[in-house]
């Protein structure tokens, strides 16, 4: 088209062109959609079409304006371009067309229009320059398209980098840091934040940029969605002042210098786990691009956080399992060693094999009982009352009056439960064989209390009404267990009294360890 205009103008500038012809050329130029103007050899504007006036935002003063129809010119770098150095001035001075130059034309109203001029000098048949014609092409749409393309390329780069960093992330921290960078570079915001629900379901800041501590403290916990909520949609607030938020919230937000803001839900398996936010100093209209980009970022971050959470859970479960395996192995070995011990004690000391087998069987059952009680509580402990009741159940008279068990119900840790369980078994079988539980008139009272800090157990086992007690000749397993092992293990006192009215045993021992212990 530029060629066509040049040819047209070249024709009309011929000296032998008639006035009528010249008039029709001008009419033709007027009708062209392209901005066109002409000058004489000195650069004085001789003609300017309507499109040129529209582009320049002003009508030139024909006969006075030189070189340009536009108000002021700038180079693309923003520096002023004096009219006598404009492409048209160069074309006339150097008698050559000027091409491939971009300039910024300022309209009188201040608006800047990117323009590509095509100034071309015109010569008559004898080669004398008679003037010049300029076609101004408005390249603002082209420029906008170029900017949009560059912007999209930046967004793509930001997204690509984000994906790459998320892929490499080895912790939630890494993922959050990558997301903060991606939000800033993809959405071109200086202020943003990420909040995640903690275990109590409260939204907590895990990443932020450009937010004061007081603002974070004021809005932490505030979230439009509940943890796990489904179908959460992003919320874009163009201007906080135009919302029906409470005035107190508006004041906090405005106080931080925020007018526009966006809430983008982060989801995992469809449920909300947190949100990310972007903030703008002025009211902000969110473009479709921005909205789509925000949702894409949120989706990526949500996936990454979920992956990190699964990974963390897996590691935790693994550590837990290793610990349990080690505990189990320890417990099994100790239990085996204990069983071997009981066997040796039972078989070495028993008067007959039959007797020994019976003792061994009883002791193993007592140990198994205690283990059952402990297993029921996940090896956290066993009730003292329950241990005694279990052990003494076979010896209770039908009316139940021969045995009294009195004391506050306390939970014994596994080690103490095992030790005391075995001690009670020895005391109970002894009572059933030789003591108060071997006769109809005998009775057994067990009383205990807990005193002090750290807690100390005081337990009395008192038999009455049984056969006359005789001090045993030799130290059996039961006595050794009570007098030596139990005393050492509970770091307390165990006193056995072979009183004529019945056996009495008092046990004193600490209920708490100073350090944590394993069983």
């Amino acid at each position, binding site marked *: 088209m530029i060629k066509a205009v040049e040819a047209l103008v070249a024709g009309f500038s011929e000296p032998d062109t008639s006035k009528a012809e010249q008039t029709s050329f001008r009419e033709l130029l007027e009708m062209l959609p392209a901005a066109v103007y002409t000058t004489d050899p000195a650069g004085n504007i001789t003609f300017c079409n309507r499109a040129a006036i529209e582009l320049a935002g002003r009508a030139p003063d024909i006969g006075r304006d030189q070189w340009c129809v536009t108000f002021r010119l700038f180079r693309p770098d923003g520096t002023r371009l004096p009219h006598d150095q404009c492409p048209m001035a160069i074309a006339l001075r150097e008698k050559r067309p000027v091409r491939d130059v971009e300039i910024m034309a300022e309209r009188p109203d201040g608006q800047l229009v990117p323009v590509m001029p095509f100034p071309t000098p015109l010569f008559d048949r004898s080669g004398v320059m008679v003037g010049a014609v300029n076609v101004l092409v408005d390249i603002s749409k082209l420029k906008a398209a170029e900017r949009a393309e560059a912007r999209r390329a930046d967004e793509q780069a930001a997204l690509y980098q984000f994906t790459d960093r998320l892929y490499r992330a080895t912790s939630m921290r890494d993922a959050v840091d990558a997301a903060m960078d991606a939000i800033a570079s993809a959405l071109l915001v200086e202020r943003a934040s990420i909040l995640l629900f903690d275990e109590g379901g409260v939204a907590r800041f895990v990443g932020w940029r450009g937010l004061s501590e007081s603002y974070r403290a004021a809005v932490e916990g505030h979230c439009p969605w509940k943890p796990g909520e489904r179908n959460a949609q992003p919320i874009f607030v163009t201007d906080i002042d135009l919302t029906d938020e409470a005035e107190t919230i508006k004041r906090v937000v405005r106080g931080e210098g925020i007018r526009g803001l966006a809430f983008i839900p982060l989801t995992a398996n469809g449920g909300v786990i947190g949100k990310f936010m972007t903030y703008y100093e002025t009211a902000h209209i969110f473009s479709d691009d921005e909205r789509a980009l925000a949702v894409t970022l949120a989706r990526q971050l949500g996936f990454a956080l979920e992956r990190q959470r699964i990974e963390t859970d897996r590691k935790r479960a693994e550590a837990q399992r290793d610990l349990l395996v080690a505990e189990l*192995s320890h417990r099994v070995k100790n239990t085996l*060693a204990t069983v071997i011990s009981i066997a040796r004690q039972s078989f070495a000391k028993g008067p007959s094999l039959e007797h020994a087998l019976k003792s061994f069987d009883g002791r193993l059952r007592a140990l198994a009982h205690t283990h059952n009680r402990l297993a029921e509580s996940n090896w956290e402990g066993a009730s003292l009352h329950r241990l005694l009741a279990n052990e003494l159940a076979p010896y209770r008279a039908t009316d139940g009056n021969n045995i009294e068990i009195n004391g506050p119900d306390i939970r014994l840790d596994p080690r103490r439960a095992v*030790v005391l369980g075995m001690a009670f078994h020895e005391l109970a079988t002894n009572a059933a064989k030789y003591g108060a539980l071997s006769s109809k008139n005998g009775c057994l009272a067990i009383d205990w209390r807990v005193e002090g800090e750290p807690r100390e157990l005081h337990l009395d086992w008192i038999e009455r009404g049984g056969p006359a007690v005789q001090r045993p000749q030799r130290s059996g397993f039961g006595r050794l267990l009570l007098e030596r092992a139990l005393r050492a293990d509970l770091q307390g006192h165990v006193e056995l009294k072979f009183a004529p009215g019945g056996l009495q045993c008092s046990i004193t021992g600490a209920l708490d360890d100073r350090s944590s212990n394993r069983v």
Partner: protein
Amino acid sequence: MQSNSVQPLGHKRVLIVEDEFLLGFSLLEDLTEAGADVIGPVSTVEEALRIVASESFDLAVLDINVRGEMSFPVADELLARNVPLIFLTGYDADAIPDRLQRLPRLGKPYHPKELASALMEAVQS
């Protein structure tokens, strides 16, 4: 062990540190039958350290994990006094620090014969 067998540990003073009372009890019996004068079983590291500081021994048997505490400080004190010792280990043999790796150990549950030979080795080394 039979009471009429030779008494390899005759009149030796042996410290037992073991928190599982029945295991300590078995050790006590085994060592007593072998002729030893047994001190213990002691069931805490604190108590063991106190006794080591105030009494003298010919030999010691240490459980590694005593109520959740490692008995290595007791081993260090005994070594400083040139008292031979053996470790009794449950699941925690790999927890033994390098400086104590050369000491003999006995896995739980142990056979009385293993105990006797481990003790003899410790006394002679």
